[in-house]
Protein backbone atom coordinates (compact mmCIF):
# COMPACT_ATOMS: atom_id res chain seq x y z
CA UNK A 1 0.00 0.00 0.00
CA UNK A 2 1.49 3.29 -1.10
CA UNK A 3 0.55 5.63 1.75
CA UNK A 4 2.54 8.51 0.30
CA UNK A 5 0.50 8.41 -2.92
CA UNK A 6 -2.78 8.05 -1.04
CA UNK A 7 -1.94 10.97 1.24
CA UNK A 8 -1.00 13.06 -1.77
CA UNK A 9 -4.31 12.24 -3.48
CA UNK A 10 -6.29 13.20 -0.39
CA UNK A 11 -4.23 16.36 -0.01
CA UNK A 12 -4.84 17.25 -3.65
CA UNK A 13 -8.57 16.70 -3.19
CA UNK A 14 -8.54 18.88 -0.07
CA UNK A 15 -6.79 21.82 -1.75
CA UNK A 16 -9.01 21.49 -4.81
CA UNK A 17 -12.02 21.84 -2.51
CA UNK A 18 -10.50 24.82 -0.70
CA UNK A 19 -9.99 26.66 -3.98
CA UNK A 20 -13.22 25.55 -5.65
CA UNK A 21 -15.65 26.12 -2.76
CA UNK A 22 -15.70 29.94 -2.98
CA UNK A 23 -15.44 29.89 -6.79
CA UNK A 24 -18.26 27.35 -7.05
CA UNK A 25 -20.50 29.24 -4.59
CA UNK A 26 -20.08 32.57 -6.36
CA UNK A 27 -20.40 31.17 -9.88
CA UNK A 28 -23.21 28.81 -8.94
CA UNK A 29 -25.27 31.48 -7.19
CA UNK A 30 -24.66 34.03 -9.93
CA UNK A 31 -25.76 31.60 -12.66
CA UNK A 32 -28.78 30.54 -10.59
CA UNK A 33 -30.25 34.01 -9.99
CA UNK A 34 -29.26 36.08 -13.01
CA UNK A 35 -30.79 36.12 -16.45
CA UNK A 36 -28.76 37.58 -19.29
CA UNK A 37 -27.89 36.95 -22.91
CA UNK A 38 -25.07 34.50 -23.36
CA UNK A 39 -25.66 32.70 -20.06
CA UNK A 40 -25.99 29.44 -21.98
CA UNK A 41 -22.51 29.89 -23.41
CA UNK A 42 -21.00 30.38 -19.97
CA UNK A 43 -22.78 27.27 -18.70
CA UNK A 44 -21.55 25.36 -21.74
CA UNK A 45 -17.97 26.52 -21.12
CA UNK A 46 -18.16 25.41 -17.51
CA UNK A 47 -19.51 22.01 -18.57
CA UNK A 48 -16.72 21.45 -21.13
CA UNK A 49 -14.44 19.42 -18.82
CA UNK A 50 -17.23 16.83 -18.59
CA UNK A 51 -16.97 16.01 -22.26
CA UNK A 52 -13.43 16.98 -23.25
CA UNK A 53 -10.95 14.10 -23.14
CA UNK A 54 -8.30 14.47 -20.42
CA UNK A 55 -5.72 14.58 -23.19
CA UNK A 56 -7.14 17.86 -24.49
CA UNK A 57 -7.11 19.47 -21.05
CA UNK A 58 -3.71 17.94 -20.40
CA UNK A 59 -2.33 19.34 -23.61
CA UNK A 60 -3.62 22.85 -22.91
CA UNK A 61 -2.23 22.68 -19.39
CA UNK A 62 1.17 21.55 -20.68
CA UNK A 63 1.20 24.52 -23.01
CA UNK A 64 -0.46 26.84 -20.48
CA UNK A 65 1.64 26.28 -17.36
CA UNK A 66 4.97 25.25 -18.93
CA UNK A 67 8.10 27.30 -18.34
CA UNK A 68 7.64 29.15 -21.65
CA UNK A 69 4.04 30.21 -21.01
CA UNK A 70 3.10 33.53 -19.41
CA UNK A 71 1.45 31.99 -16.31
CA UNK A 72 4.35 29.55 -15.92
CA UNK A 73 6.95 32.30 -16.20
CA UNK A 74 5.00 34.58 -13.83
CA UNK A 75 4.67 31.80 -11.26
CA UNK A 76 8.38 31.04 -11.45
CA UNK A 77 9.34 34.70 -11.05
CA UNK A 78 7.13 35.01 -7.95
CA UNK A 79 7.74 31.68 -6.24
CA UNK A 80 11.13 30.79 -7.69
CA UNK A 81 10.08 27.33 -8.80
CA UNK A 82 8.31 26.09 -11.91
CA UNK A 83 4.57 25.45 -11.87
CA UNK A 84 4.75 22.45 -14.20
CA UNK A 85 5.62 19.11 -12.53
CA UNK A 86 4.70 20.49 -9.10
CA UNK A 87 1.92 19.91 -6.61
CA UNK A 88 0.67 23.48 -7.15
CA UNK A 89 0.46 22.81 -10.88
CA UNK A 90 -1.62 19.70 -10.14
CA UNK A 91 -3.96 21.73 -7.95
CA UNK A 92 -4.40 24.24 -10.81
CA UNK A 93 -5.19 21.37 -13.20
CA UNK A 94 -7.51 19.76 -10.69
CA UNK A 95 -9.46 23.00 -10.14
CA UNK A 96 -9.95 23.31 -13.89
CA UNK A 97 -11.21 19.82 -14.58
CA UNK A 98 -13.45 19.86 -11.50
CA UNK A 99 -15.25 23.11 -12.37
CA UNK A 100 -18.44 21.44 -13.64
CA UNK A 101 -18.52 18.97 -10.76
CA UNK A 102 -18.43 21.86 -8.30
CA UNK A 103 -20.48 24.56 -10.03
CA UNK A 104 -23.37 22.55 -11.47
CA UNK A 105 -24.74 20.95 -8.28
CA UNK A 106 -24.32 24.27 -6.42
CA UNK A 107 -26.18 26.09 -9.17
CA UNK A 108 -29.05 23.55 -8.93
CA UNK A 109 -29.06 24.07 -5.16
CA UNK A 110 -29.49 27.83 -5.50
CA UNK A 111 -32.00 27.45 -8.34
CA UNK A 112 -34.24 25.38 -6.05
CA UNK A 113 -34.74 28.34 -3.70
CA UNK A 114 -38.03 30.06 -4.63
CA UNK A 115 -37.65 33.70 -5.68
CA UNK A 116 -40.21 34.73 -3.05
CA UNK A 117 -37.88 33.56 -0.29
CA UNK A 118 -35.12 35.82 -1.57
CA UNK A 119 -37.56 38.73 -1.92
CA UNK A 120 -38.87 38.16 1.61
CA UNK A 121 -35.33 38.28 2.94
CA UNK A 122 -34.72 41.56 1.15
CA UNK A 123 -38.02 42.99 2.46
CA UNK A 124 -36.97 42.10 6.01
CA UNK A 125 -33.94 44.28 5.51
CA UNK A 126 -31.37 41.53 5.46
CA UNK A 127 -28.13 42.51 3.73
CA UNK A 128 -27.02 40.42 0.74
CA UNK A 129 -24.36 38.78 2.86
CA UNK A 130 -26.71 37.92 5.74
CA UNK A 131 -29.35 36.60 3.38
CA UNK A 132 -26.72 34.35 1.81
CA UNK A 133 -25.46 33.01 5.15
CA UNK A 134 -28.79 32.73 7.00
CA UNK A 135 -31.24 31.81 4.24
CA UNK A 136 -29.67 30.69 0.99
CA UNK A 137 -26.74 28.56 2.09
CA UNK A 138 -28.85 26.47 4.51
CA UNK A 139 -31.42 25.93 1.79
CA UNK A 140 -28.90 25.16 -0.98
CA UNK A 141 -26.85 22.96 1.33
CA UNK A 142 -27.69 19.59 -0.32
CA UNK A 143 -26.45 20.87 -3.67
CA UNK A 144 -23.31 22.25 -2.09
CA UNK A 145 -22.59 18.98 -0.31
CA UNK A 146 -23.12 17.03 -3.52
CA UNK A 147 -20.69 19.36 -5.26
CA UNK A 148 -18.04 18.89 -2.59
CA UNK A 149 -18.33 15.11 -2.58
CA UNK A 150 -18.35 14.82 -6.37
CA UNK A 151 -15.28 17.06 -6.60
CA UNK A 152 -13.50 15.09 -3.91
CA UNK A 153 -14.23 11.70 -5.48
CA UNK A 154 -13.46 12.92 -8.97
CA UNK A 155 -10.08 14.32 -7.90
CA UNK A 156 -9.14 10.98 -6.33
CA UNK A 157 -10.06 9.26 -9.57
CA UNK A 158 -8.50 11.60 -12.12
CA UNK A 159 -5.76 9.88 -14.10
CA UNK A 160 -5.16 11.12 -17.62
CA UNK A 161 -4.42 14.74 -16.87
CA UNK A 162 -2.20 13.90 -13.91
CA UNK A 163 -0.26 11.47 -16.08
CA UNK A 164 0.26 14.16 -18.72
CA UNK A 165 1.21 17.16 -16.58
CA UNK A 166 2.39 15.65 -13.29
CA UNK A 167 5.64 13.91 -14.06
CA UNK A 168 4.96 11.06 -11.62
CA UNK A 169 7.09 12.41 -8.77
CA UNK A 170 6.59 10.38 -5.57
CA UNK A 171 5.37 12.66 -2.80
CA UNK A 172 4.85 15.57 -5.19
CA UNK A 173 2.70 14.56 -8.16
CA UNK A 174 2.33 10.78 -7.95
CA UNK A 175 -1.31 10.30 -7.02
CA UNK A 176 -2.84 6.99 -5.97
CA UNK A 177 -4.33 6.48 -9.45
CA UNK A 178 -0.88 6.84 -11.05
CA UNK A 179 0.70 4.61 -8.42
CA UNK A 180 -1.85 1.89 -9.23
CA UNK A 181 -1.06 2.23 -12.95
CA UNK A 182 2.66 1.85 -12.19
CA UNK A 183 2.06 -1.26 -10.10
CA UNK A 184 -0.05 -2.86 -12.83
CA UNK A 185 2.65 -2.20 -15.41
CA UNK A 186 5.27 -3.51 -13.01
CA UNK A 187 3.30 -6.78 -12.67
CA UNK A 188 2.76 -6.12 -8.97
CA UNK A 189 -0.87 -7.21 -8.92
CA UNK A 190 -1.08 -7.68 -5.17
CA UNK A 191 -0.23 -4.04 -4.46
CA UNK A 192 -2.45 -2.81 -7.30
CA UNK A 193 -5.37 -4.83 -5.93
CA UNK A 194 -4.90 -3.48 -2.39
CA UNK A 195 -4.70 0.12 -3.56
CA UNK A 196 -7.65 -0.26 -5.94
CA UNK A 197 -9.80 -1.71 -3.16
CA UNK A 198 -8.84 1.18 -0.87
CA UNK A 199 -9.75 3.73 -3.51
CA UNK A 200 -13.02 1.94 -4.22
CA UNK A 201 -13.96 1.96 -0.54
CA UNK A 202 -13.12 5.65 -0.09
CA UNK A 203 -15.06 6.68 -3.20
CA UNK A 204 -18.08 4.58 -2.26
CA UNK A 205 -18.09 5.96 1.29
CA UNK A 206 -17.86 9.54 0.03
CA UNK A 207 -20.77 9.14 -2.35
CA UNK A 208 -22.86 7.28 0.24
CA UNK A 209 -22.30 10.11 2.73
CA UNK A 210 -23.51 12.65 0.19
CA UNK A 211 -26.65 10.66 -0.64
CA UNK A 212 -27.56 9.98 2.97
CA UNK A 213 -26.92 13.55 4.11
CA UNK A 214 -28.53 15.01 1.01
CA UNK A 215 -31.65 12.89 1.45
CA UNK A 216 -31.94 13.80 5.11
CA UNK A 217 -31.47 17.51 4.45
CA UNK A 218 -33.95 17.43 1.61
CA UNK A 219 -36.56 15.84 3.90
CA UNK A 220 -35.91 18.41 6.62
CA UNK A 221 -36.29 21.34 4.22
CA UNK A 222 -38.81 19.70 1.93
Amino acid sequence: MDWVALKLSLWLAFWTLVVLLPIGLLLGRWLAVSRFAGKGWIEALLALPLVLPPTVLGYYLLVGIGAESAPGALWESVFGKPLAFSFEGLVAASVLFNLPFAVQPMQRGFEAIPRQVREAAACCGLTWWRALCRIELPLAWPGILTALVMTFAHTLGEFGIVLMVGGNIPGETQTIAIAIYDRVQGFDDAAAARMSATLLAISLAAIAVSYVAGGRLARRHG
Partner: protein
Amino acid sequence: MRREPRRRRLLRRLAGLAACGFAGGLAAPPAFAAGPAPGRAEPVPTVAAASGLKFAIEELAAAFTRETGRKLRLSFGSSGNFARQIEQGAPFELFLSADEAMVFRLADKGLTLDRGTLYAVGRLVLIVPRGSPLKPDGELRDLAAALVDGRLKRFAIANPEHAPYGKRAEEALRHAGLWEAIRPRLVMGENVAQAAQFATSGSAQGGIVAHSLALAPALAGGSHFALIPAAWHQPLNQRMVLLKGAGETARAFHDWLLQPAARAVMARYGYGPPEEGKGEGGEEGKGEGGRGKVQGGGKAGSGKTGEGAAWTGSR
Protein backbone atom coordinates in the same frame (compact mmCIF):
# COMPACT_ATOMS: atom_id res chain seq x y z
CA MET B 1 -37.59 21.90 -2.18
CA ARG B 2 -37.50 18.19 -2.79
CA ARG B 3 -34.22 16.59 -3.64
CA GLU B 4 -35.46 14.13 -6.20
CA PRO B 5 -36.52 16.36 -9.09
CA ARG B 6 -33.38 18.43 -8.70
CA ARG B 7 -31.13 15.44 -8.95
CA ARG B 8 -33.11 14.17 -11.88
CA ARG B 9 -32.69 17.50 -13.59
CA LEU B 10 -28.96 17.40 -12.98
CA LEU B 11 -28.81 13.90 -14.35
CA ARG B 12 -30.87 14.90 -17.33
CA ARG B 13 -28.57 17.82 -17.96
CA LEU B 14 -25.55 15.54 -17.69
CA ALA B 15 -27.15 12.94 -19.93
CA GLY B 16 -27.94 15.62 -22.49
CA LEU B 17 -24.34 16.77 -22.43
CA ALA B 18 -23.10 13.22 -22.73
CA ALA B 19 -25.43 12.63 -25.64
CA CYS B 20 -24.13 15.76 -27.36
CA GLY B 21 -20.56 14.61 -26.90
CA PHE B 22 -21.48 11.15 -28.12
CA ALA B 23 -23.27 12.46 -31.18
CA GLY B 24 -20.29 14.69 -31.92
CA GLY B 25 -18.07 11.64 -31.70
CA LEU B 26 -20.30 9.72 -34.08
CA ALA B 27 -20.36 12.55 -36.58
CA ALA B 28 -16.60 12.54 -36.84
CA PRO B 29 -15.16 10.06 -39.33
CA PRO B 30 -13.68 7.05 -37.56
CA ALA B 31 -9.99 7.61 -38.23
CA PHE B 32 -8.95 4.41 -36.52
CA ALA B 33 -10.83 2.07 -38.85
CA ALA B 34 -7.86 1.34 -41.06
CA GLY B 35 -9.40 -1.90 -42.32
CA PRO B 36 -7.82 -4.25 -44.80
CA ALA B 37 -6.04 -2.77 -47.77
CA PRO B 38 -8.17 -2.75 -50.90
CA GLY B 39 -7.58 -5.68 -53.19
CA ARG B 40 -5.93 -7.65 -50.42
CA ALA B 41 -7.85 -10.15 -48.39
CA GLU B 42 -5.39 -10.16 -45.51
CA PRO B 43 -6.22 -7.90 -42.57
CA VAL B 44 -3.70 -5.27 -41.49
CA PRO B 45 -1.63 -6.58 -38.58
CA THR B 46 -0.93 -4.43 -35.54
CA VAL B 47 2.66 -4.06 -34.38
CA ALA B 48 3.30 -3.10 -30.75
CA ALA B 49 6.56 -1.20 -30.39
CA ALA B 50 8.35 0.36 -27.42
CA SER B 51 8.01 4.14 -27.49
CA GLY B 52 11.75 4.68 -27.94
CA LEU B 53 11.44 3.08 -31.38
CA LYS B 54 8.74 5.50 -32.50
CA PHE B 55 10.58 7.43 -35.19
CA ALA B 56 12.77 4.57 -36.41
CA ILE B 57 9.91 2.10 -36.79
CA GLU B 58 7.62 4.67 -38.40
CA GLU B 59 10.24 5.21 -41.08
CA LEU B 60 10.89 1.48 -41.47
CA ALA B 61 7.20 0.60 -41.67
CA ALA B 62 6.66 3.22 -44.36
CA ALA B 63 9.58 1.80 -46.36
CA PHE B 64 8.26 -1.73 -45.90
CA THR B 65 4.82 -0.70 -47.17
CA ARG B 66 6.37 1.04 -50.18
CA GLU B 67 8.45 -2.04 -50.96
CA THR B 68 5.88 -4.77 -50.46
CA GLY B 69 2.53 -3.00 -50.73
CA ARG B 70 1.57 -4.49 -47.36
CA LYS B 71 0.19 -2.19 -44.70
CA LEU B 72 0.97 -2.22 -40.99
CA ARG B 73 -0.68 -0.61 -38.02
CA LEU B 74 1.73 0.68 -35.39
CA SER B 75 1.03 1.10 -31.71
CA PHE B 76 3.61 2.76 -29.44
CA GLY B 77 3.78 2.64 -25.66
CA SER B 78 5.78 1.31 -22.76
CA SER B 79 7.07 -2.25 -23.10
CA GLY B 80 5.63 -3.17 -19.71
CA ASN B 81 2.19 -1.98 -20.67
CA PHE B 82 2.23 -3.94 -23.94
CA ALA B 83 3.37 -7.09 -22.15
CA ARG B 84 0.41 -6.68 -19.81
CA GLN B 85 -2.01 -6.19 -22.68
CA ILE B 86 -0.62 -9.16 -24.63
CA GLU B 87 -1.12 -11.34 -21.56
CA GLN B 88 -4.75 -10.22 -21.58
CA GLY B 89 -5.12 -11.25 -25.22
CA ALA B 90 -4.46 -7.97 -27.04
CA PRO B 91 -4.51 -8.63 -30.80
CA PHE B 92 -0.89 -7.68 -31.57
CA GLU B 93 1.02 -9.85 -34.02
CA LEU B 94 4.55 -8.54 -33.55
CA PHE B 95 6.01 -7.09 -30.34
CA LEU B 96 9.13 -4.91 -30.48
CA SER B 97 10.22 -4.60 -26.88
CA ALA B 98 12.88 -2.31 -25.44
CA ASP B 99 13.53 -4.99 -22.87
CA GLU B 100 14.35 -8.68 -23.20
CA ALA B 101 12.68 -9.50 -19.92
CA MET B 102 9.25 -8.69 -21.32
CA VAL B 103 9.75 -10.98 -24.31
CA PHE B 104 11.01 -13.86 -22.16
CA ARG B 105 8.10 -13.39 -19.80
CA LEU B 106 5.60 -13.73 -22.64
CA ALA B 107 7.54 -16.66 -24.11
CA ASP B 108 7.44 -18.45 -20.74
CA LYS B 109 3.66 -18.08 -20.78
CA GLY B 110 3.48 -19.64 -24.24
CA LEU B 111 2.10 -16.53 -25.92
CA THR B 112 4.87 -16.21 -28.52
CA LEU B 113 6.12 -18.30 -31.44
CA ASP B 114 9.66 -18.46 -30.05
CA ARG B 115 11.96 -16.65 -27.64
CA GLY B 116 12.35 -13.72 -29.99
CA THR B 117 15.19 -12.17 -31.94
CA LEU B 118 17.69 -9.58 -30.85
CA TYR B 119 17.61 -6.92 -33.55
CA ALA B 120 19.39 -3.87 -32.12
CA VAL B 121 21.05 -2.41 -29.06
CA GLY B 122 19.85 0.93 -27.74
CA ARG B 123 21.90 3.72 -26.18
CA LEU B 124 21.18 6.36 -23.58
CA VAL B 125 21.83 10.08 -24.05
CA LEU B 126 21.78 13.07 -21.78
CA ILE B 127 19.47 15.52 -23.53
CA VAL B 128 19.13 19.21 -22.64
CA PRO B 129 16.70 21.70 -24.18
CA ARG B 130 18.08 24.76 -25.92
CA GLY B 131 18.73 27.52 -23.38
CA SER B 132 19.14 25.08 -20.51
CA PRO B 133 21.78 25.97 -17.92
CA LEU B 134 22.96 22.36 -18.20
CA LYS B 135 25.80 21.40 -20.55
CA PRO B 136 25.29 18.25 -22.64
CA ASP B 137 28.09 16.20 -21.13
CA GLY B 138 27.73 12.45 -21.50
CA GLU B 139 30.00 11.77 -18.53
CA LEU B 140 27.45 13.69 -16.40
CA ARG B 141 30.13 15.86 -14.78
CA ASP B 142 28.20 19.07 -15.44
CA LEU B 143 25.05 17.38 -14.16
CA ALA B 144 26.83 16.67 -10.89
CA ALA B 145 27.95 20.30 -10.69
CA ALA B 146 24.44 21.56 -11.50
CA LEU B 147 23.02 19.43 -8.69
CA VAL B 148 25.39 21.10 -6.25
CA ASP B 149 24.96 24.72 -7.38
CA GLY B 150 21.18 24.54 -7.80
CA ARG B 151 21.04 25.01 -11.58
CA LEU B 152 19.12 21.74 -11.84
CA LYS B 153 15.51 21.92 -10.69
CA ARG B 154 13.88 19.14 -12.69
CA PHE B 155 15.39 16.17 -14.51
CA ALA B 156 13.35 13.73 -16.61
CA ILE B 157 13.76 9.97 -16.99
CA ALA B 158 11.35 7.18 -17.87
CA ASN B 159 9.84 5.37 -14.91
CA PRO B 160 12.46 2.83 -13.70
CA GLU B 161 9.71 0.64 -12.28
CA HIS B 162 8.53 -0.57 -15.65
CA ALA B 163 10.23 1.31 -18.50
CA PRO B 164 13.51 -0.32 -19.65
CA TYR B 165 15.11 3.02 -20.54
CA GLY B 166 14.21 4.25 -17.07
CA LYS B 167 15.90 1.27 -15.44
CA ARG B 168 19.06 1.83 -17.46
CA ALA B 169 18.97 5.58 -16.74
CA GLU B 170 18.86 4.74 -13.04
CA GLU B 171 21.85 2.40 -13.48
CA ALA B 172 23.81 5.12 -15.29
CA LEU B 173 23.00 7.70 -12.61
CA ARG B 174 23.98 5.22 -9.91
CA HIS B 175 27.23 4.54 -11.76
CA ALA B 176 27.95 8.27 -11.73
CA GLY B 177 27.11 8.37 -8.03
CA LEU B 178 24.28 10.85 -8.58
CA TRP B 179 21.19 8.72 -7.98
CA GLU B 180 20.47 9.65 -4.36
CA ALA B 181 21.16 13.33 -4.98
CA ILE B 182 19.04 13.60 -8.10
CA ARG B 183 16.05 11.59 -6.90
CA PRO B 184 14.13 14.55 -5.39
CA ARG B 185 14.50 16.37 -8.71
CA LEU B 186 13.25 13.59 -10.98
CA VAL B 187 10.13 13.74 -13.10
CA MET B 188 9.17 10.40 -14.54
CA GLY B 189 7.60 9.78 -17.91
CA GLU B 190 5.28 6.83 -18.24
CA ASN B 191 7.50 5.70 -21.12
CA VAL B 192 10.71 7.04 -22.62
CA ALA B 193 8.92 9.14 -25.24
CA GLN B 194 7.01 10.99 -22.55
CA ALA B 195 10.27 11.39 -20.62
CA ALA B 196 11.80 13.01 -23.73
CA GLN B 197 8.79 15.29 -23.99
CA PHE B 198 9.22 16.29 -20.33
CA ALA B 199 12.98 16.74 -20.75
CA THR B 200 12.69 19.06 -23.74
CA SER B 201 9.52 20.93 -22.75
CA GLY B 202 11.53 23.71 -21.11
CA SER B 203 9.96 22.89 -17.74
CA ALA B 204 12.87 20.57 -16.94
CA GLN B 205 16.57 21.33 -17.44
CA GLY B 206 17.27 18.00 -19.10
CA GLY B 207 16.85 14.26 -18.96
CA ILE B 208 18.17 10.85 -19.88
CA VAL B 209 16.35 9.32 -22.85
CA ALA B 210 16.83 6.99 -25.79
CA HIS B 211 19.44 8.00 -28.36
CA SER B 212 16.91 7.17 -31.10
CA LEU B 213 14.53 9.85 -29.84
CA ALA B 214 17.25 12.49 -29.51
CA LEU B 215 18.19 11.91 -33.16
CA ALA B 216 14.63 12.36 -34.36
CA PRO B 217 14.10 15.54 -36.39
CA ALA B 218 11.23 16.55 -34.11
CA LEU B 219 13.61 16.88 -31.14
CA ALA B 220 16.95 17.57 -32.80
CA GLY B 221 16.09 21.21 -33.55
CA GLY B 222 15.37 22.30 -30.01
CA SER B 223 17.89 20.38 -27.96
CA HIS B 224 21.46 19.14 -27.56
CA PHE B 225 22.51 15.70 -26.40
CA ALA B 226 25.54 13.58 -25.59
CA LEU B 227 25.94 9.82 -25.45
CA ILE B 228 26.30 8.24 -22.04
CA PRO B 229 29.01 5.53 -21.97
CA ALA B 230 27.48 2.14 -22.74
CA ALA B 231 29.55 0.55 -19.99
CA TRP B 232 27.69 2.54 -17.34
CA HIS B 233 24.56 0.43 -17.59
CA GLN B 234 23.38 -3.00 -18.69
CA PRO B 235 22.81 -3.31 -22.43
CA LEU B 236 19.49 -2.11 -23.80
CA ASN B 237 18.86 -5.24 -25.79
CA GLN B 238 15.97 -4.59 -28.15
CA ARG B 239 14.25 -7.92 -28.72
CA MET B 240 11.30 -8.53 -31.00
CA VAL B 241 9.00 -11.51 -31.04
CA LEU B 242 6.14 -12.79 -33.18
CA LEU B 243 3.05 -13.57 -31.16
CA LYS B 244 0.78 -16.57 -31.48
CA GLY B 245 -1.51 -16.04 -34.41
CA ALA B 246 0.89 -13.77 -36.31
CA GLY B 247 -0.08 -13.51 -39.98
CA GLU B 248 1.92 -13.43 -43.18
CA THR B 249 2.49 -9.65 -43.16
CA ALA B 250 3.75 -9.54 -39.57
CA ARG B 251 6.18 -12.40 -40.30
CA ALA B 252 7.40 -10.64 -43.43
CA PHE B 253 8.00 -7.40 -41.52
CA HIS B 254 9.81 -9.30 -38.77
CA ASP B 255 12.22 -10.82 -41.32
CA TRP B 256 12.50 -7.56 -43.22
CA LEU B 257 13.71 -5.77 -40.07
CA LEU B 258 16.74 -8.07 -39.99
CA GLN B 259 17.84 -7.11 -43.53
CA PRO B 260 20.90 -4.85 -44.03
CA ALA B 261 18.72 -2.01 -45.34
CA ALA B 262 16.65 -1.96 -42.17
CA ARG B 263 19.82 -2.31 -40.07
CA ALA B 264 21.18 0.80 -41.78
CA VAL B 265 18.08 2.80 -40.83
CA MET B 266 18.32 1.56 -37.24
CA ALA B 267 21.99 2.62 -37.21
CA ARG B 268 20.96 6.09 -38.38
CA TYR B 269 18.70 6.27 -35.33
CA GLY B 270 21.60 5.44 -33.07
CA TYR B 271 20.99 1.72 -32.54
CA GLY B 272 24.00 -0.56 -32.46
CA PRO B 273 23.96 -3.90 -34.30
CA PRO B 274 22.74 -6.80 -32.17
CA GLU B 275 26.12 -8.57 -32.22
CA GLU B 276 27.35 -6.02 -29.69
CA GLY B 277 24.62 -6.98 -27.35
CA LYS B 278 24.89 -9.74 -24.89
CA GLY B 279 21.82 -11.91 -24.72
CA GLU B 280 21.25 -12.14 -21.02
CA GLY B 281 20.84 -15.57 -19.56
CA GLY B 282 22.47 -17.14 -22.60
CA GLU B 283 19.39 -16.59 -24.71
CA GLU B 284 19.72 -17.25 -28.38
CA GLY B 285 17.67 -15.35 -30.85
CA LYS B 286 16.01 -17.53 -33.45
CA GLY B 287 15.01 -15.67 -36.55
CA GLU B 288 12.22 -17.06 -38.66
CA GLY B 289 13.48 -19.44 -41.34
CA GLY B 290 16.90 -19.64 -39.74
CA ARG B 291 17.66 -16.05 -40.71
CA GLY B 292 19.05 -13.53 -38.28
CA LYS B 293 20.72 -15.96 -35.96
CA VAL B 294 22.25 -14.04 -33.12
CA GLN B 295 24.80 -15.64 -30.89
CA GLY B 296 23.83 -14.71 -27.40
CA GLY B 297 27.08 -14.21 -25.59
CA GLY B 298 25.41 -15.05 -22.31
CA LYS B 299 27.25 -13.93 -19.23
CA ALA B 300 28.53 -17.19 -17.91
CA GLY B 301 27.32 -17.92 -14.45
CA SER B 302 25.23 -14.77 -14.11
CA GLY B 303 22.10 -16.85 -14.47
CA LYS B 304 20.02 -13.73 -14.84
CA THR B 305 17.06 -14.12 -17.09
CA GLY B 306 16.31 -10.57 -17.94
CA GLU B 307 16.09 -9.36 -14.35
CA GLY B 308 12.68 -10.82 -13.74
CA ALA B 309 13.35 -10.28 -10.07
CA ALA B 310 13.58 -6.52 -10.46
CA TRP B 311 9.95 -6.49 -11.49
CA THR B 312 8.37 -6.65 -8.10
CA GLY B 313 8.22 -2.89 -7.84
CA SER B 314 8.98 -2.93 -4.14
CA ARG B 315 9.32 0.53 -2.76
